[in-house]
């Protein structure tokens, strides 16, 4: 009697899990069909030969002194574009995210509902941020290349606008995902909004903000390479020339520099996090 015969037990979550997996896979099939994704195409004799020929030119990577100078110069330019773009993006994202932060609403405090004007301002800023980031930086770059001509300014502005929208939105999410009670307790005791942010929100979310900013900087480096392809300066512009001339050695050197830059960004991010802790 103490140990009853074990009844067969069914996890009630199991059928739902199976169904959702099957539905997901079924939805994936038409997507593959529409994009005509067919792995067999890689192993087609002609494409195999073409890739082999191009890849064969990769070795050895280009390393003439003249080319290395160009490499360092354009790498430096790429980092500069990414950094300046990122600083401008932060300059826009930080104030926007502070103003739009719902957790710091004074009119909402104790009333459960925000005042009409603050609600409109907050929603407006969220809309602006989402419009900015929904236009890809490549499109911004093409627009700015038209407006200010070929060169680095177009790249900087493209990164500033798209990334400003992204960083602002993610910062907002980070603030609001934190335990907001510390900031609210300060607000209730009469602290100002910026004060409550600095003493209540910032201490707990600073590492996340920093590491996301460094990650975005890393993305900006990669992105400025792509922007270079449409004439917005930096490594991308040079790499596009090498690709066009089918100079595999130079392409490989550029790729190695990308990997190095991303690795450096990763180290910086890690270093910042341990320093903060």
């Amino acid at each position, binding site marked *: 009697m103490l140990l009853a015969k074990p009844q067969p037990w069914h996890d009630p979550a199991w059928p739902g899990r199976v169904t959702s997996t099957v539905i997901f896979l079924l939805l994936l099939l038409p997507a593959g069909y529409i994009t005509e994704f067919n792995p067999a195409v890689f192993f087609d004799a002609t494409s195999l030969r073409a890739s082999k020929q191009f890849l064969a030119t990769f070795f050895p990577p280009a390393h003439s002194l003249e080319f290395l100078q160009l490499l360092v110069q354009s790498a430096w330019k790429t980092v500069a574009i990414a950094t300046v773009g990122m600083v401008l993006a932060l300059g826009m994202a930080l104030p926007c995210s502070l103003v739009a932060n719902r957790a710091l609403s004074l009119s909402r405090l104790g009333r459960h509902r925000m005042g009409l004007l603050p609600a409109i301002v907050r929603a407006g800023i969220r809309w602006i941020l989402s419009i900015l980031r929904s236009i890809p930086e490549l499109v911004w770059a093409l627009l700015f290349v038209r407006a200010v001509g070929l060169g680095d300014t177009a790249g900087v502005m493209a990164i500033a606008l798209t990334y400003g929208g992204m960083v602002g939105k993610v910062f907002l999410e980070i603030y609001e995902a934190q335990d907001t009670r*510390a900031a609210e307790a300060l607000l209730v*005791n009469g602290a100002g909004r910026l004060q409550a942010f600095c003493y*209540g929100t910032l*201490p*707990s979310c600073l590492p996340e903000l920093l590491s996301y900013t460094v990650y975005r900087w890393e993305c900006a480096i990669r992105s400025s390479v792509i922007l270079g392809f449409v004439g917005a300066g930096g490594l991308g512009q040079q790499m596009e020339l090498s690709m066009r001339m089918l100079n595999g050695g130079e392409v490989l050197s550029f790729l190695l520099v990308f990997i190095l830059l991303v690795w450096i960004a990763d180290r910086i991010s890690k270093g910042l996090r341990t320093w903060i802790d």
Partner: protein
Amino acid sequence: MSRGIRQVQTATAASLGDMTLRYRDGRVALDAITLTFAVGEQVAIIGPSGAGKTSLLHVLACALRPTSGTLAVLGTAHPWNTTTATLHALRKRIFLAPQMPPLPPRQRVVHTVLAGRLPQWNTWQALKSLLYPVDAPLAEAALARFRMEDKLLLRCDRLSGGERQRVGLARMLLSAAPLILLDEPVSALDPVLGLQALQTVQEEARARAATMVVSLHDVGLAHAQFQRLIGLRDGKVFFDLPSAQVTPERLADLYGMEPPDATSDAVAVDASGIKMSRCF
């Protein structure tokens, strides 16, 4: 002496008239509460968990808007009918220490304590102090009154529950608020430290002639340290009496228990399951 105190006590620090508070879902949190707190008075609120003690303190702190009835705090009648700016200026003169004070985990204690000064500081002073703590000796002195001076440079997430509570109280010492509201301020402290911490905040309130309202689950402590006890139950004022008149029978009634036998005293009530607090 008693004449002097009486004269001071004629002024009202806060009053509630027929005040009702409903939650968003319509449940009644506080039901037709009428209470008056004189300037300089120290009052303890007791009652079973969920009776509305925390809500009452939040209404007094202007952190929750009453659904109906009247509210006057520190000379401002109907603070919720004023502008947001006026209301917030009033909040600068009220200090509310929430139950288990929410402290940012990565913040150093020195900044946490100095945050008590924020209402008096402008934004620049606040930012400057984040770069290099101003008034750190003041924070250290405040911590010393709770035997915590050695924790000044520790991060808040390295503190125990009792230490966090005392940091919250040290923050109160740095505020200049004439109305002090403490929600279960010593619930995580042992009886000796708890009494000592409570006495420290009471001295401070007396020294600055501040009005203090404290919710306590330790009925014995409330009985011993406060002249006036308010019993709250189901959102209603169950009794509002000088503590001498709060008998064990009344307490048993308040907590909905069998009346104690004649030999037990108020302290004995404490031992029987009152220490339950709400969990979320």
